[in-house]
Structures are given as structure tokens and as C-alpha cells.
């Protein structure tokens, strides 16, 4: 499947800029014969907030799902904290455990209460004592303004509340990087803001964030860089001011006109 499984030598380490927490080098991926990622190269520095946008089917979700190898790439290299990640690397679980991920459809564990959702990975992956895990869970629930729901089950919460629980769950792992895969796309309009507010607070605290989102107002406010993708390629990469005020390509202009006209 993968052609580029070179073990990381010291030489490889030396030529990397040290503060890239995520680095894609010519990454290619196919779904069957569909070339979903074409020569993707990008790097994310510690503390950076990246927003990836683009029309549906452009491969933007696939990019962030490759970071923790929920999807596997077939060519090129992906480095997380200087370690190359690939399908059958040793310690992939460890790498995943250090990356928080928030999904479009929340993906809370429906059979567990909110607080159990937050403690499960802490206890069984991070090996924290139950009491400490619960304290941590309550700390992060408070941070996403939802502490009073701790004993409820996900099915009893609104969409916005569920997504905030999902963010708290990811934070409990003490991640260095947070990935957001369209976190507000499944929410009712009046719940989008409560989730975005939490994400803005998180950004203000200096978290490294990679967000796939259609929320252009959020991108403007928070992003250090906006990456625009179309048909499996990175078409534009620019600061939000540049991207929104003076997009360089026709495709980006078309996309922005469609997204912003309402």
C-alpha cells in the first residue's frame, strides 16, 4: 500500500524545522481510483490556528483525518511532532492519544454518561486513576460551560451541548493539537454560536488547532492562515485578510462569493 515507509533517520530529523507540529510532504491518497489528495504539502507550527475550507468533496476532511491516520495515505510523508505517521507504525495509538479530534456528528459514546465519556480514555489510554480523571473531566466540562450536565447521557443533550462535551472529551487527553472536522455542520443555527464560542476561547488559550469549517466569520476572527482546497489540491494558502479581501484564484473567488453572499 504505502511506498514511503522509510524509518526516520537522524538525517531526516535534522532537515526538519523543529517547531512544525504537523507537516505534510507531497501527500497523495486515492479512494479506489479517485485521487482525493494530490501532492498536499503544508506545515502547522505550534500554537497556530489553521482553517481549511473549500467546496464539498475537495478533500479537506480527508486531510485532517490523515493526521491521526483515521485515513491512511498512500504516498508522501506525514510528520506529527517530527515522527512520521503511517498505517502500521509502532506507537500510532500513542500519537493518536496526543491529538484531540472533534467530529461533525459528535460521536459521543451513547451508552456512557457525559462524565464517563470524558473519563474513559483517560482511565484506559492515559492510565490515570479514576478520581483524578473525574476531577479533570469536571474541570473541562466547566470550561465548556456545561458542568451541570455531567450525569446525563448524550441522548438527553442538545446538539450544541453534545458538541461541547465532545470538545471537553478531546481536551481531557491533554492534546497538543486539536483537529475539528466540520464541528458545527450538524448543528441547528442557534447552537452554532455556543460551540464556536468555546472554540474561540480555546484558540485564545494558545491551542494548536486545525479546523475544517464553513464558518468564515470564525476563520476571520481566529485563523492565522486559511487553506483553500478544491478537487484534492491546496489552491490557496493565505492569511484571512488576504484570503477574504483579495483571493488570488478564480476558484477561491467563486467559492467565497457562494459562501458569503447570504
Amino acid at each position: 500500500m504505502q511506498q514511503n515507509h522509510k524509518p526516520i533517520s537522524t538525517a531526516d530529523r535534522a532537515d526538519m524545522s523543529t517547531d512544525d507540529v504537523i507537516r505534510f510532504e507531497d501527500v497523495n491518497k486515492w479512494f479506489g481510483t479517485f485521487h482525493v489528495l494530490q501532492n498536499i504539502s503544508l506545515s502547522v507550527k505550534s500554537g497556530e490556528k489553521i482553517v481549511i475550507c473549500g467546496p464539498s468533496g475537495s478533500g479537506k476532511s480527508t486531510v485532517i483525518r490523515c493526521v491521526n491516520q483515521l485515513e491512511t495515505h498512500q504516498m508522501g510523508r506525514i510528520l506529527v511532532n517530527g515522527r512520521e505517521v503511517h498505517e502500521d507504525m509502532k506507537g500510532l495509538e500513542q500519537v493518536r492519544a496526543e491529538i484531540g479530534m472533534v467530529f461533525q456528528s459528535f460521536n459521543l459514546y451513547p451508552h456512557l454518561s457525559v462524565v464517563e465519556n470524558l473519563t474513559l480514555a483517560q482511565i484506559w489510554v492515559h492510565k490515570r486513576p479514576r478520581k483524578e480523571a473525574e476531577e479533570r473531566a469536571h474541570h473541562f466540562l466547566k470550561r465548556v460551560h456545561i458542568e451541570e450536565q455531567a450525569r446525563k447521557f448524550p441522548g438527553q443533550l442538545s446538539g450544541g451541548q453534545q458538541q461541547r462535551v465532545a470538545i471537553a472529551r478531546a481536551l481531557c487527553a491533554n492534546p497538543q493539537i486539536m483537529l475539528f472536522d466540520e464541528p458545527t455542520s450538524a448543528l441547528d443555527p442557534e447552537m452554532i454560536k455556543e460551540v464556536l464560542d468555546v472554540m474561540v476561547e480555546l484558540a485564545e488559550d494558545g491551542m494548536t488547532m486545525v479546523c475544517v469549517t464553513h464558518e468564515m466569520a470564525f476563520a476571520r476572527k481566529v485563523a492565522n492562515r486559511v487553506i483553500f482546497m478544491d478537487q484534492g489540491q491546496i489552491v490557496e494558502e493565505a492569511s484571512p485578510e488576504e484570503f477574504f479581501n483579495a483571493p488570488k484564484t478564480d476558484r477561491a473567488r467563486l467559492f467565497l462569493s457562494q459562501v458569503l453572499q447570504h
Partner: protein
Amino acid sequence: MTDRMLSATADHPDANAVIRERAGILPPAPAQGRLPPRTHSGPVDWIHRNLFPDWRQGLLTIVVLYLLYLSMPGLYNWAIGNATWVGDRADCVANGGACWAFVNARWGQFMYGFYPVAERWRVDLTFALLIVSVAPMLFPAIPGKRWFLAFSLLVYPVIAFFLLYGGVLGLPVVETARWGGFMLTLVVAISGMVGSLPLGILLALGRRSKMTVIRLFCTTFIELFRAVPLITVLFMASVMLPLFMPQGFTLDKLLRALIGVALFNGALMAEVIRGGLQAIPRGQYEAATAAGMGYWRMMIFVILPQALRIVIPGIVNTYVAIIKDTTLVLIIGLFDLLGIVQAGIADSNWLSASVTKTGYVFAGMGFWVLCFGLSRYSMYLERRLNTGHNT
């Protein structure tokens, strides 16, 4: 989609107050409004609503009442009115009703088979111990389930075996050939249930495995056992298996039957559980994987608890079938409840039409009580495990 989301935030530039309120306690309690419409109650009203809501259903009610009038007196007379509670065959034949005297006289044998009378306390103790160790797990209020579970699965079977079989602590050995009746039914059914569930889980996981050898093995196993009748499996276990054993190595006949029952029902269970596994959304696997859980942790803590909950009706269905299929051990010369009743009926001291009917009704009631109890418990369990995510 995109446009809608954008416009949504744009339209609500600062709905902070509302949102903060929502972030707090779920929607505020409804303000004092009108009371709900009065519901009727009382027996007269119940009869009106359920039995005679309109002329068609009223007619049906009358027809059903008439059918009950035709059948119930006969049943009552047979089971109670003309029944013989004490006596012998002559009394039963004279009275014409059910011959409970027969059941009464054979009670010990129906319960324990040919287990020696002096040792029957061991059977009682075994099942009393089972109830003590399992009952606490059935009810949520009792703490320490983990320890009861560990005891029931790891320690209890050993104790049960030595209590029933003997050979230790001065307990005389009771060969399994002497076990029988309701006790044997329970032994076969319970070990079938306990064996088939973990086996079914492993087979179901194996059948969905990415590892080709494991997948092929599990698929072959399931399809092989699922496609033959249990009676064939039992017969094979009883007659054919010893031929493959090394010489001088014998496996107890009952044990072979237990293994056969567990393997057969494990294959059935695997397909039930596979259905549950397929119903779990991909997002659950992804969330667990992204959190850094490996395969087993993901399965044990995230996937299986949900999958098993979904298939509780299917599992109970298989369990009910296991209980009823225990009657098939008769084919390899073991006497379960039905087998021992049948043997009793044929006794020349009792042989009569009345005794035959009574025997079968009694055996049927024994199975019905077990299966119905199980079914009610599963309904209770489903309600209790419902966390509201699919309502």
C-alpha cells in the same frame, strides 16, 4: 448546507444571552399553562375504552368471551375439578382429570433424575449458590457487581462441578449418567448460555476481522455449525468424537454434549452479535480510535456494550432456544426434564392416558416458567439500559 450555516451565524450576531441560557440547564420548565385534558379512569371506563369502544370490537369481545365460556370449564375440570392430587393410577383413571398424584410421586425423580436421594442436598446447594451469586447482578441497586461476576464466571463453575460430581472432601462421586430431570436441563442450559455468549462474541469479531486466516476460520466454523441440526452435532459429539480421541482418553458423555451445545449455539450467537456490531455507526469506531484506544479496548468499552444492548432480544431468543433444545440430549441417552417425564409415563404402574397428558403438561409448564422468566427479565434489562439515544 454551507450557505445556511453561514447565514445562521450572520443572522444571530449576538444571541449570547439565549445561548448562555441554553448552555446552562436544559430548556426552562414550562410556564404555568393549561392542565392536560382529564384522562378517564375506573373499571367501568376501562371496560368501555378497551372492550366496547365501538360495535365491531364489542362484537369481538362477545365472541371471545363465548369461546372462553366453551373452553375454560373443560380446562378447569381437567386441571383442578376432576384432578387427582393423591392416590394411584386407579384413582386417576376413576376421576378422569389430571393426575397430579403422579407428578407428586415422581417429583424427586423429575427434579434430580437418578441422583442418589441421600446426595440431593448437593444439587440444592449448587443451585442455591447460583442464585446467591447471580441475583445481585440482576439488580442495579446492589454494589460490587464486578466481584459477583468474577465469582460466578471463574469460581462458581469449579465449585458447582465438584459439588455435583463429588470426589473431593469426602463427597461420594455421582456419575453424570445419574444426573437427570430438571437439574440436568438447568446444567445443560446454563452451561450452553454461559459458553455460547463469549464464543459468539469472539466468532462475530473474528468474522469481521481484517486478518484473513482468522476471518476464514470463523466464517467456516459459523457456517458449518449453523447449517446442521443440533441433533447431528450432539450425535457427532456422542458417537463420532470418541473415535478421534487418543486411545485411553475418554471425555465424559455429558461434557461432550455440553461442548456440542456450546459450539452450536456459539455459532448462532455469533450471527446475532454480528448484526449488533453492524448497527454501530462508523463514528463510534473513529472516536475510539482517535482517542488512542487499540482494538480490544475499543471493542470492550465502546463497541460491544452498544452492540450487545441492541441485540438483547436476539440473545434472549437464542437463550430460549437453548433451554428448549436441552430436550434433544435424550438422543444421546441423557434424561432431561422431558426425557425423565417420558420415562415415568411409560412406567407400567402408572401407564394411562390421564398420566400421559399430565406428564407432558407438567414438562411443558417447567419449560414455560424458565423461558417466560427469561423473557421478562430481558424486557426489564432493555428498559434499564436505555440511555435515551435512540428515542
